Protein backbone atom coordinates (compact mmCIF):
# COMPACT_ATOMS: atom_id res chain seq x y z
CA UNK A 1 0.00 0.00 0.00
CA UNK A 2 1.16 3.56 -0.62
CA UNK A 3 2.81 5.53 2.17
CA UNK A 4 0.23 7.71 3.85
CA UNK A 5 -3.27 6.38 4.12
CA UNK A 6 -6.05 8.93 4.50
CA UNK A 7 -9.75 8.55 4.94
CA UNK A 8 -12.70 10.44 6.36
CA UNK A 9 -16.31 9.87 7.35
CA UNK A 10 -19.16 12.02 8.63
CA UNK A 11 -22.17 10.94 10.63
CA UNK A 12 -25.17 12.87 11.93
CA UNK A 13 -27.93 11.47 14.06
CA UNK A 14 -30.76 12.54 16.40
CA UNK A 15 -29.86 12.95 20.05
CA UNK A 16 -31.70 9.82 21.17
CA UNK A 17 -30.14 7.47 23.67
CA UNK A 18 -30.69 4.42 21.47
CA UNK A 19 -28.31 5.98 18.93
CA UNK A 20 -25.40 5.65 21.38
CA UNK A 21 -24.79 2.03 20.38
CA UNK A 22 -25.17 2.94 16.69
CA UNK A 23 -22.59 5.74 16.99
CA UNK A 24 -19.89 3.72 18.74
CA UNK A 25 -20.35 0.69 16.49
CA UNK A 26 -20.14 2.88 13.37
CA UNK A 27 -16.96 4.61 14.53
CA UNK A 28 -15.48 1.24 15.51
CA UNK A 29 -16.28 -0.13 12.05
CA UNK A 30 -14.57 2.88 10.47
CA UNK A 31 -11.57 2.48 12.78
CA UNK A 32 -11.25 -1.22 11.96
CA UNK A 33 -9.45 -0.43 8.68
CA UNK A 34 -6.42 0.45 10.82
CA UNK A 35 -6.35 -3.14 12.13
CA UNK A 36 -6.71 -2.23 15.80
CA UNK A 37 -6.56 -4.85 18.52
CA UNK A 38 -9.80 -5.78 20.28
CA UNK A 39 -8.59 -3.70 23.21
CA UNK A 40 -7.92 -0.60 21.11
CA UNK A 41 -11.34 -0.99 19.50
CA UNK A 42 -12.98 -1.26 22.93
CA UNK A 43 -11.15 1.93 24.02
CA UNK A 44 -12.49 3.82 21.00
CA UNK A 45 -16.01 2.49 21.50
CA UNK A 46 -16.06 3.48 25.16
CA UNK A 47 -14.66 6.98 24.50
CA UNK A 48 -17.22 7.60 21.73
CA UNK A 49 -20.01 6.32 23.92
CA UNK A 50 -19.01 8.74 26.69
CA UNK A 51 -18.86 11.76 24.38
CA UNK A 52 -22.16 10.96 22.65
CA UNK A 53 -23.88 10.33 25.99
CA UNK A 54 -22.58 13.71 27.21
CA UNK A 55 -24.04 15.46 24.16
CA UNK A 56 -27.40 13.78 24.65
CA UNK A 57 -27.88 14.20 28.38
CA UNK A 58 -25.84 17.33 29.12
CA UNK A 59 -25.71 19.20 25.79
CA UNK A 60 -29.32 18.71 24.79
CA UNK A 61 -30.65 17.61 28.19
CA UNK A 62 -32.67 14.88 26.48
CA UNK A 63 -34.43 17.33 24.16
CA UNK A 64 -34.21 17.11 20.38
CA UNK A 65 -30.96 17.90 18.66
CA UNK A 66 -28.36 16.55 16.30
CA UNK A 67 -25.05 14.97 17.24
CA UNK A 68 -22.37 15.14 14.60
CA UNK A 69 -19.32 12.90 14.28
CA UNK A 70 -16.46 13.47 11.89
CA UNK A 71 -13.73 10.88 11.92
CA UNK A 72 -10.47 11.05 10.04
CA UNK A 73 -7.63 8.66 9.55
CA UNK A 74 -4.09 9.91 8.96
CA UNK A 75 -1.49 7.18 8.57
CA UNK A 76 -2.19 5.09 11.66
CA UNK A 77 -3.89 7.70 13.82
CA UNK A 78 -7.63 8.05 14.11
CA UNK A 79 -9.15 11.40 14.96
CA UNK A 80 -12.74 11.56 16.14
CA UNK A 81 -14.62 14.82 16.46
CA UNK A 82 -17.96 14.73 18.24
CA UNK A 83 -19.99 17.93 18.32
CA UNK A 84 -23.38 19.19 19.38
CA UNK A 85 -25.15 22.54 19.33
CA UNK A 86 -26.47 22.15 22.85
CA UNK A 87 -26.05 24.29 25.92
CA UNK A 88 -22.26 24.09 26.21
CA UNK A 89 -20.02 23.56 29.23
CA UNK A 90 -19.62 26.43 31.70
CA UNK A 91 -16.50 25.21 33.42
CA UNK A 92 -14.44 22.80 31.33
CA UNK A 93 -11.78 22.48 34.06
CA UNK A 94 -14.42 21.28 36.51
CA UNK A 95 -16.12 19.00 33.97
CA UNK A 96 -12.81 17.20 33.38
CA UNK A 97 -12.39 16.37 37.07
CA UNK A 98 -12.88 12.70 37.94
CA UNK A 99 -16.12 12.01 39.81
CA UNK A 100 -17.50 15.49 39.11
CA UNK A 101 -21.01 15.46 37.70
CA UNK A 102 -23.47 18.28 37.18
CA UNK A 103 -26.31 15.78 37.33
CA UNK A 104 -25.75 13.83 40.55
CA UNK A 105 -29.47 13.17 40.86
CA UNK A 106 -29.27 11.05 37.70
CA UNK A 107 -26.72 8.60 39.14
CA UNK A 108 -24.01 9.63 36.75
CA UNK A 109 -20.58 8.43 37.82
CA UNK A 110 -18.78 11.59 36.69
CA UNK A 111 -16.15 9.52 34.89
CA UNK A 112 -16.95 10.51 31.29
CA UNK A 113 -14.03 12.82 30.51
CA UNK A 114 -11.67 10.78 32.68
CA UNK A 115 -12.48 7.69 30.61
CA UNK A 116 -12.03 9.58 27.32
CA UNK A 117 -8.67 10.92 28.50
CA UNK A 118 -7.38 7.58 29.71
CA UNK A 119 -8.53 5.55 26.69
CA UNK A 120 -7.48 8.00 23.97
CA UNK A 121 -4.06 9.59 23.40
CA UNK A 122 -5.32 13.13 23.10
CA UNK A 123 -8.60 14.79 24.07
CA UNK A 124 -9.45 18.42 23.53
CA UNK A 125 -12.66 20.17 24.50
CA UNK A 126 -13.98 23.32 22.90
CA UNK A 127 -17.20 24.71 24.27
CA UNK A 128 -19.19 27.93 24.18
CA UNK A 129 -22.10 28.31 26.57
CA UNK A 130 -25.32 28.47 24.56
CA UNK A 131 -23.67 27.40 21.31
CA UNK A 132 -22.43 23.90 21.83
CA UNK A 133 -19.49 21.62 22.48
CA UNK A 134 -16.91 19.93 20.32
CA UNK A 135 -14.72 17.09 21.57
CA UNK A 136 -11.73 16.06 19.49
CA UNK A 137 -9.98 12.81 20.36
CA UNK A 138 -6.98 11.15 18.79
CA UNK A 139 -5.61 7.67 19.11
CA UNK A 140 -2.59 6.08 17.57
CA UNK A 141 -3.22 2.51 16.50
CA UNK A 142 -0.07 0.53 16.94
CA UNK A 143 0.64 -1.69 14.03
CA UNK A 144 1.41 -5.24 15.10
CA UNK A 145 1.17 -6.64 11.62
CA UNK A 146 4.38 -4.98 10.53
CA UNK A 147 6.33 -6.49 13.37
CA UNK A 148 4.99 -9.92 12.45
CA UNK A 149 5.87 -9.33 8.81
CA UNK A 150 9.40 -8.43 9.77
CA UNK A 151 9.65 -11.52 11.92
CA UNK A 152 8.44 -13.68 9.05
CA UNK A 153 10.94 -12.03 6.76
CA UNK A 154 13.73 -12.76 9.20
CA UNK A 155 12.66 -16.38 9.38
CA UNK A 156 12.54 -16.62 5.60
CA UNK A 157 16.01 -15.13 5.35
CA UNK A 158 17.31 -17.52 7.94
CA UNK A 159 15.74 -20.45 6.15
CA UNK A 160 17.34 -19.41 2.88
CA UNK A 161 20.82 -19.38 4.25
Amino acid sequence: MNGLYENEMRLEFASKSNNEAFARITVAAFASQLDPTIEELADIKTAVSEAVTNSIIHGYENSEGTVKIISKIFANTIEIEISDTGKGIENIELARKPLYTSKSNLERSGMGFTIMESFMDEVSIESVVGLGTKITMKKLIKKQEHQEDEKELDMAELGGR
Partner: protein
Amino acid sequence: MNSVFLERDKTLLVEITEEIDHHTTDKMRRKIDDDITRYMPRKIIFDFNKVSFMDSAGIGMVIGRYKMMNMLGRNNTDEKC
Protein backbone atom coordinates in the same frame (compact mmCIF):
# COMPACT_ATOMS: atom_id res chain seq x y z
CA MET B 1 -30.87 -8.90 31.71
CA ASN B 2 -32.13 -11.74 33.89
CA SER B 3 -32.66 -11.59 37.60
CA VAL B 4 -33.38 -14.37 40.05
CA PHE B 5 -34.10 -14.08 43.75
CA LEU B 6 -32.59 -16.87 45.80
CA GLU B 7 -34.96 -17.15 48.75
CA ARG B 8 -32.67 -19.29 50.93
CA ASP B 9 -29.72 -16.88 50.73
CA LYS B 10 -31.87 -13.75 50.48
CA THR B 11 -29.73 -12.90 47.46
CA LEU B 12 -30.72 -11.20 44.26
CA LEU B 13 -28.74 -12.57 41.35
CA VAL B 14 -28.58 -10.18 38.40
CA GLU B 15 -27.14 -11.48 35.17
CA ILE B 16 -26.54 -8.76 32.60
CA THR B 17 -26.57 -10.00 29.02
CA GLU B 18 -26.62 -6.80 26.96
CA GLU B 19 -24.19 -3.94 26.36
CA ILE B 20 -24.28 -1.44 29.22
CA ASP B 21 -24.65 2.24 28.30
CA HIS B 22 -26.82 5.20 29.27
CA HIS B 23 -29.67 3.84 27.12
CA THR B 24 -29.77 0.30 28.54
CA THR B 25 -29.11 1.25 32.19
CA ASP B 26 -32.48 3.03 32.38
CA LYS B 27 -34.35 -0.23 31.91
CA MET B 28 -31.97 -2.24 34.11
CA ARG B 29 -32.23 0.29 36.92
CA ARG B 30 -36.02 0.12 36.89
CA LYS B 31 -36.07 -3.67 36.93
CA ILE B 32 -33.44 -4.04 39.66
CA ASP B 33 -35.05 -1.39 41.89
CA ASP B 34 -38.36 -3.14 41.41
CA ASP B 35 -36.79 -6.43 42.49
CA ILE B 36 -35.08 -4.82 45.49
CA THR B 37 -38.31 -3.35 46.83
CA ARG B 38 -40.24 -6.53 46.11
CA TYR B 39 -37.84 -9.10 47.60
CA MET B 40 -35.80 -6.98 50.04
CA PRO B 41 -32.63 -9.01 49.35
CA ARG B 42 -29.76 -8.99 51.81
CA LYS B 43 -27.25 -9.15 48.99
CA ILE B 44 -27.07 -8.47 45.25
CA ILE B 45 -24.69 -10.34 42.98
CA PHE B 46 -24.04 -8.82 39.56
CA ASP B 47 -22.82 -11.23 36.91
CA PHE B 48 -20.98 -9.39 34.11
CA ASN B 49 -19.76 -12.51 32.31
CA LYS B 50 -21.85 -11.89 29.21
CA VAL B 51 -21.22 -8.15 29.02
CA SER B 52 -19.28 -7.14 25.92
CA PHE B 53 -19.41 -3.38 26.44
CA MET B 54 -19.76 -1.02 29.40
CA ASP B 55 -19.16 2.71 29.82
CA SER B 56 -19.42 5.07 32.79
CA ALA B 57 -23.20 4.66 32.88
CA GLY B 58 -22.59 1.12 34.13
CA ILE B 59 -20.41 2.38 36.97
CA GLY B 60 -23.17 4.85 37.90
CA MET B 61 -25.77 2.09 37.82
CA VAL B 62 -23.80 -0.25 40.12
CA ILE B 63 -22.87 2.53 42.56
CA GLY B 64 -26.50 3.65 42.59
CA ARG B 65 -27.69 0.15 43.57
CA TYR B 66 -24.95 -0.02 46.21
CA LYS B 67 -26.15 3.24 47.74
CA MET B 68 -29.74 2.05 47.62
CA MET B 69 -28.83 -1.16 49.46
CA ASN B 70 -26.97 0.86 52.08
CA MET B 71 -29.94 3.15 52.51
CA LEU B 72 -32.18 0.15 53.08
CA GLY B 73 -29.74 -1.09 55.70
CA ARG B 74 -28.47 -3.99 53.61
CA ASN B 75 -24.78 -4.50 53.51
CA ASN B 76 -23.51 -5.96 50.31
CA THR B 77 -23.34 -5.61 46.57
CA ASP B 78 -20.98 -8.00 44.87
CA GLU B 79 -19.58 -7.85 41.41
CA LYS B 80 -18.53 -10.97 39.61
CA CYS B 81 -16.50 -10.38 36.48
